[in-house]
């Protein structure tokens, strides 16, 4: 690890946008020879802030106005993250006055808590702890209607490039020169055709390969916390004629017979690519085939990004592609920024040099065009994968040794646990992601299709995450569970835990006989008096007269439910897909408080709900 630098770029990213913009900024700084530290907010060592002088933060917002997960993710060797350290009450108001900072928030004004992530960071770092701002923070809006780009119709990208421009202007003015071999020379940008060599990359190992790397069992090394599970059940639980395939998926640890988790906890599953897709990639980059199964090593240690989940051994190109490179994902700008210069293979061009030039120009445009519309139309809108881009641009001849620098790394996906606390047979409820675009091949989610493909007895890598969603103070109180669709997943665990006195479960789906998942279990519980069950079927009025959605049923029983909440300290636990549902439920909840909860007006009802959220009595888990 290199020592921390004076210039620091930090990002907080949930879906990867903030990470990608931060990567572009880091790339630009390297091309101007600016030494800097570049990592997620969670990976930044809090002590390094004393050495930092220029702090650049790009951060999005997730969930209900929260900071993204990698802001709070804790590295095992540390006891406290940068952000949890900054939140300590005893820090003086001049604690960060040695820092000059500039911030960029990525948000979406269709969510009520627009850009709360960057606003929280700003409030603490600038207003409360005294960091100096180089320029007012920028807030980008994915809706392009409010925020930094109000009324101009410009998207997030233009706000990023404005930010980049301001940052570079400042740094170039401050540090116009650099030293090379003791000589001071003017700082100039590196020729864009030159590829920046990563700190550590792959090379063929000197050791003589054991007979056939393919026959050796794959192991994952370097992450002690990753566990191996055995698949016990993988069953479709929606009817065959329903559009969505939902799986009941059970697995257990291969080594031990016990697990430690509570309702609301999640399992991280590490997916991989299919062998077919790996072969397709290798046949596209056919010069890789001769080295595909040779053992490899890193020139300068394992890159940080590869540590989570362990590194596949034996380390061959084939295994790296299968287990670590997310080449079936949609390429981001930084991918084009790094690879466009490798479009060099004129032998694959029908129209020779002219076509090669066209391809280079187009790729360079995707990499640098500040208005990302063409890239968006070509990649994001049809959900085109990196592999499909390579198949369209046959001139791209990639060097395999840098593969982990320019391809994105496969990250684990998180699923709520449905089994009861500590049950060694860990159960997940997974909706398989599939959809159509103009591309003829059906688009699939890498992790859900990986899960759907698993057979009983196969092994998976996983980790369990304790989220401490349910506080001990509320045990044995009444609980209201609201979970339409796959939102039911964590609620099942709550019911199985059997720690609440009076359990009301609101479930909703489209049709009673198509996607009413876990029908038998729920109805058994209802008969046995374990829960009171309220179902609504949004496209099946025959079986759901008068109520369409879960919130309709909540409203129908408003008086009773409000009484439980206001007078009996009931917990309210809401799960399911993000979007309109949680907003509608929330609005319904406030209306209920106003009508039956003795709150005179909107303000007091909202304040009550805020208090409930603060004490974790109104819990929302949406994804």
């Amino acid at each position: 690890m290199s020592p921390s630098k004076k210039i620091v770029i930090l990002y907080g990213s949930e879906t990867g946008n903030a990470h990608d913009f931060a990567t572009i900024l880091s790339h630009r700084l390297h091309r101007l020879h600016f030494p800097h530290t570049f990592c997620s907010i969670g990976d930044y060592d809090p002590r390094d802030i004393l050495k930092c002088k220029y702090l650049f933060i790009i951060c999005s917002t997730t969930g209900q106005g929260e900071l993204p997960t990698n802001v709070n993710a804790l590295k095992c060797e540390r006891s406290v993250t940068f952000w949890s350290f900054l939140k300590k009450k005893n820090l003086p108001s001049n604690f960060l006055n040695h820092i000059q900072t500039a911030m960029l928030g990525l948000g979406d004004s269709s969510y009520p808590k627009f850009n709360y992530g960057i606003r929280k960071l700003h409030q603490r770092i600038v207003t409360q702890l005294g960091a100096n701002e180089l320029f007012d923070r920028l807030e980008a809006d994915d809706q392009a209607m409010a925020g930094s780009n109000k009324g101009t119709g410009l998207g997030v990208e233009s706000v990023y490039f404005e930010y980049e421009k301001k940052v570079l202007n400042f740094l170039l003015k401050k540090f116009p020169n650099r030293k090379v071999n003791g000589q001071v020379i003017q700082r100039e940008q590196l020729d864009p055709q030159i590829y920046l060599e990563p700190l550590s990359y792959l090379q063929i190992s000197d050791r003589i390969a054991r007979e056939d790397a393919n026959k050796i069992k794959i192991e994952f090394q370097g992450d002690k916390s990753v566990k191996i599970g055995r698949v016990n059940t993988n069953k479709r639980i929606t009817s065959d004629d329903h559009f969505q395939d939902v799986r009941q998926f059970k697995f257990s640890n291969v080594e031990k017979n016990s697990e430690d988790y509570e309702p609301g906890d999640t399992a991280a599953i590490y997916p991989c690519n299919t062998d077919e897709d790996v072969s397709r990639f290798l046949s596209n980059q056919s010069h890789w085939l001769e080295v595909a199964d040779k053992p490899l090593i890193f020139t300068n240690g394992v890159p940080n990004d590869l540590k989570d989940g362990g590194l596949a051994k034996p380390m061959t190109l084939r295994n790296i592609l299968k287990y670590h490179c997310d080449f079936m994902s949609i390429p981001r700008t930084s991918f084009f920024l790094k690879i466009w210069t490798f479009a060099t293979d004129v032998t694959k061009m029908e129209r020779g040099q002219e076509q090669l030039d066209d391809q280079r120009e187009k790729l360079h445009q995707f990499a640098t065009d500040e208005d990302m519309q063409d890239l968006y139309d070509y990649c994001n809108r049809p959900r085109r994968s990196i592999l499909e881009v390579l198949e369209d641009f046959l001139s791209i001849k990639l060097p395999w040794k840098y593969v982990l620098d320019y391809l994105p790394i496969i990250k684990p996906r998180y699923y709520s646990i449905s089994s009861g606390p500590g049950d060694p047979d860990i159960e997940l409820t997974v909706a398989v992601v599939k959809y159509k675009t103009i591309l003829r091949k059906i688009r699939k989610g890498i992790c859900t299709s990986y899960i759907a493909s698993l057979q009983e007895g196969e092994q998976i890598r996983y980790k369990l995450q304790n989220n401490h969603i349910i506080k001990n103070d509320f045990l044995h109180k009444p609980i209201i569970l609201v979970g339409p669709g796959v939102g039911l997943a964590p609620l099942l665990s709550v019911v199985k835990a059997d720690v609440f006195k009076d359990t009301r479960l609101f479930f909703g789906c489209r049709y009673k006989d198509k996607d009413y998942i876990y029908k038998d279990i729920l109805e058994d519980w209802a008969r046995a008096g374990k829960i009171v069950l309220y179902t609504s079927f949004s496209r099946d009025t025959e079986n759901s007269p008068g109520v369409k959605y879960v919130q309709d049923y909540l409203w129908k029983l408003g008086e009773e439910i409000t009484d439980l909440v206001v007078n009996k300290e009931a917990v309210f636990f809401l799960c399911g897909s993000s979007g309109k549902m949680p907003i509608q439920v929330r609005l319904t909840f406030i209306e209920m408080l106003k009508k039956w909860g003795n709150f005179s007006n909107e303000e007091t009802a909202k304040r009550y709900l805020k208090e409930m959220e603060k004490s974790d009595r109104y819990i929302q888990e949406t994804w």
Partner: protein
Amino acid sequence: MSHYKSGLLLIHPAVTTTPELVENAKAQATSMNVKFVDQFLINKLNDGSINLEKAKYEIIKYLTPEAPADIQFPKKLIPVLAESLTPNGSLIGLSDIYKVDALINGFEIVNEPDYQWIRKDFSKLNQTVSIPLKNKKTSSTKSQSGNNKLPTFKKASGTTTKLPSFKKASNAELPILKKTEDFQSPSFKMAAEPKVYKVVDDLIEDSDDDFSSDSSKAQYFDQVDVEDDSIEEEDLIDENDSGKPMITMITCGKSKTKKKKACKDCTCGMREQEEKEINDVRSQQEKVVKFTEDELTEIDFTIDGKKVGGCGSCSLGDAFRCSGCPYLGLPAFKPGQPINLDSISDDL
């Protein structure tokens, strides 16, 4: 009772966060015997991705959270809305800010029983309004008949214009690129292996190095953790303040409007629009690629009579195809050679 007035509900994007407003508007409409047969976001209309039929609606309702005096409405849409109303149809939701545009486009502003704009009857319009409009030649030609207006409307939002505007934009980029990065070779010709550069970064110490962090700050890292000594994250946000976000106008950049992706639980009609687009492209594909059982693995794209796009870039892949290309969504292929469809066959 059996006949409903057909209505159009236009929505300001900010309304999507408060769906109950839409519900209210619908309920109110029902009580007035109006049925909203269409519902669109105003920006979809503004960027030309939705075109309105002529004389289709008896009522158009514009739903916006803005106060009447603060309404910002794209003026160019006012004639478009006028076109889509039946004679004597009404437009509700705009205010006197756009009074002039209302009059120019043949509306009568009515204050009773509720404020609204009524589209004057066509036949009457020519007679009654002709005298005052004589003074202003330009506006008289504009408002005399709907037919005269049509060409301008087409220019603004017709799909045929997409192509030239795309071309214009990408042509304009090239010179900029060259200007800012002069040291780059003029074309993209570069067939040799690209050079690789090992990062050598350097920062000459700056003058304000003395203004570095004070060593006393280190003590805060050595303190023992006491329970609950952290601030509440929620307290960092002042709810009352969130109404005025940090606004920095970005003036650079181009004016292309971004096409949006429909939200998960789309209610504004965008999802349907997207699905229609996908189906349109797919049916185009069906026209050029006829799949039979034996053709599942190999298809010859060069068979005579197959439709070919005008740009000559059909074989090069989507990145180079024009927006109306019948091959959109299909992989790049070599002209004159059969293409392997293994990779795209799982949906056939």
